[in-house]
């Protein structure tokens, strides 16, 4: 079946078997191997991407279901500068082996897009669909908090630049 989707701003069309999962479409057809497969029961969240702006587990979406959709993967998070979530994870040691990290960062960016000032409990709850075996999660929580600060800082800068 022919599937067309916009991945990180680029439209791609491929012919795939209906059983192709979105995660395999991204990794094998779009060549974006930053999205990882960590389990086969939809628990671990390593494969999380943004599908039309919503965080979803790309291992539990068929590529054909994403026909016509906009997808953002880890490779699309950075614009001219690192995304605040990337910067936050870097500064606060939110990753060790890096395998769950793309899923963690997209989950975090989704959380901050829907809840710009989450409490620590909000953050820990939002990470319920993410398994990380390295960090013990606390540095991920700090990373998300730092990302939120960076977002606020950048907004303030933007406002000041406009006024200036």
């Amino acid at each position: 079946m022919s599937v067309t989707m916009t991945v990180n701003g680029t439209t791609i069309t491929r012919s795939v078997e209906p059983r192709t999962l979105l995660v395999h479409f991204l990794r094998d057809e779009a060549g974006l191997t930053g999205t990882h497969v960590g389990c086969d029961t939809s628990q671990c969240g390593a494969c999380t991407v943004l599908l039309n702006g919503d965080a979803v587990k790309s291992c539990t979406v068929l590529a054909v279901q994403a026909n016509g959709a906009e997808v953002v993967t880890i490779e699309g998070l950075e614009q001219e500068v690192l995304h605040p979530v990337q910067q936050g994870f870097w500064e606060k040691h939110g990753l060790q082996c890096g395998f769950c990290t793309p899923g963690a960062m997209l989950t975090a960016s989704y959380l901050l897009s829907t809840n710009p000032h989450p409490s620590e409990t909000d953050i820990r709850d939002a990470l319920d669909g993410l398994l990380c075996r390295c960090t013990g999660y606390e540095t991920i929580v700090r990373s998300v908090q730092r990302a939120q600060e960076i977002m606020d800082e950048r907004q303030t800068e933007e406002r000041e630049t406009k006024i200036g």
Partner: protein
Amino acid sequence: MADVIGSALKRHEDVRLIRGKGQYTDDIKLPGMLYAGIVRSPHAHARLVKVDVSRALKMPGVVAAFTGADLKDEVGFIPTAWIPPDSDMKMPPHPALAVDMVRYQGDGVAVVIAQTPAQARDGVDAVEVEYESLPAVTNPFAAAQEGAPLVHEDIAGNVAFHWKVGGDVEEIFNRAEVVVRQEFRQQRLVPNAMEPRSAVAQWNPATEELTLWATTQNPHIHRLLMSGILGIPEHKLRVVAIDVGGAFGSKISCYPDEIIVSWAARRLNRPVKWTETRTENFTVTSHGRDHVQEVALAGTKDGHIEAIRVKTYANLGAYLSTAAPGVPTILFGLIVNGAYAIPEASAEVYGMLTHTTPVDAYRGAGRPEATFLVERMVDLYAHAINKDPLEVRNINLIPAEAFPYTNPFGLQYDSGNYQGALAKALEIVDYAAFRREQENLRQQGKYIGIGFSTYVEMCGLGPSEVAGAVGFQGGLWESATVRVHPTGKVTVFTGASPHGQGEETTFAQIVAQELGVPPEDIEVVHGDTSKIAMGWGTYGSRTTVVGGAAIHLADQKVIAKARKIAAHKLEVGEDDVEFEQGIFSVKGLPARAVTFQEAALDAYLAWSLPAGMEPALEGTAFYNPENFTYPFGTHIAIVSVDPDTGDVELMRYVAVDDVGVVINPMLVEGQIHGGLVQGIGQALYEGVEYDTNGQLMTGSFLDYAMPKARFFPKFETAHTTTPSPHNPLGVKGVGETGAIASTPAVVNAVMDALAPFGIQDLPMPLTPRKVWQAIASKGGHMHVHDAI
């Protein structure tokens, strides 16, 4: 330049990882690549009656299919790399694909190779296998009983080895005032690194070289073992681990799957990839722990421990995995006295074969099993003599002035101040106030508890002479090459193989500090046998301790040569040159100076080098430690138990660790946090269960409770610093401390909370149902605290 060692430098590896540009094995795609799927036994124990791949070969996209019969004449048995001395060890033959018997659920019986991974999976389903199911045994104690099904027909009683260490303690037990006995079940755990294992093999027919990209912690050990198994000489075999997504011991082992794809790539002359599913990971990637322990402690009525005696049935699974025999012996038995000055000790270990997934190292590997039993026994002993567990610890902890301290098994603890770490922890937790609050809450029917773990562990594996003496079939030294380029940029080659720990950064910090080069000018290369001559990999909290020390020695060689070049240029004697922060200067004349970078350029131009000096600037060193290192500390857990549901809530967790000199405090904290969550996971959540047929009942993330973010409070961490006296950097290692220390702290805390019910011990994990059952059996009843 400020000190780089000791600073919380952001990680170098993150630059790629936060952009999704890591290169994990499953990310590799080669032209013409084929995909392998492995047919696995659904039975724990069965005779293979028939394996027929003919239907699979007709499936779309299937290129080839092989069975154990196809491999058996070309592929050798997979050996273990650890043979404990004086143990009469029997090594059962371990074929990469089973030939006539399957011995655990997941044992491979055939491989199907196809154009796409999905076609390989379809092909797996098309292989027809006929099994004759046989009775299975999964528990190591049960396996030792008469009449238990045999895992390997010629290994009587399923005993792979019997190992004993320590003195005769019977006399002490016979006359002791107090003897405490307890059985502990160290439950089996699944390491569950988030990256499933993967292997990609490519055969080059022109050079007759095989390249294997694999998820491994120790590519050189893989190369060594695989060259023997596959009959490909080491110089024609390259093993590469680029980015590895966590391991925790589970990627030490040399696995059948990696051997199968390597053999198939050569046979088919096409690259072949295999990547496990999580379901496969649960059944075939090595598990950890799994002991049945009988422990006895002898002491006086006033709190002096006189002896400890341990008898353990350690489950090794169906075959002996790479490091498996070393884990419950050397890494366990030699340290069962823990941090206490116990005069006499003995440990006896039965290494048991069962119809289960092979067991190997899992974060801590042996030391958690030892630390747990001694920390729990101290609490049980305190209870038996009606003393506070803290008081008993104070009486028995090895005093600071006793270091270096030789334990009853002859290990020499390098340095320590155990009381100092305990004191620091008690600055964070007001113990007396806690006990008052606990009493008040008990009056209201609420139960909180506190648990201590004043642990020590053996790290930084290790002295190669000792490795040989304890039966490890390799060395445990480490290699480093520090290559300075003409522009003064530096490439560091290490034989360690970090996979998340962050040594690309830590090692750059060591080199930056010592050579005075900016950290961003340093690249650390690891995990490729074609680039690094030899090394022993990353496990046992050894990477910074042993690998870092090797880099330090290599740095000294570089500095010594650069100093000669600088002295030559400055026209002074070598002894008149000082080196500080990257600048060679004449003593007392700081203006007369040569930068490190200038010396490097001179070394390569070689226009004017001291007489007889070879060009270039590079140092290679091999560090063979003279002893292990012994990190220690005090962990305190505070929990509450809900008697209505059995829920255990971790309210506070305090970790004071002494890991010697800290190179990057941010990374050290990260290691401790990660270890804590795994250790607490063992205490409260995680545990493998098999049914009576040997079927894994906890074979997915739906059943096996992995720790999640919302299970934990903020951790409270602190340090004391007692440098290791024999390590040139003073470091002790930090990878395993959290996992080793935390499990008994949490269990001690829960038992403290349950003390009013007369409950002294429960087997891990302390699930709500288990805790509730125990309370209910002691007459606990429902309270409705929140009711109107």
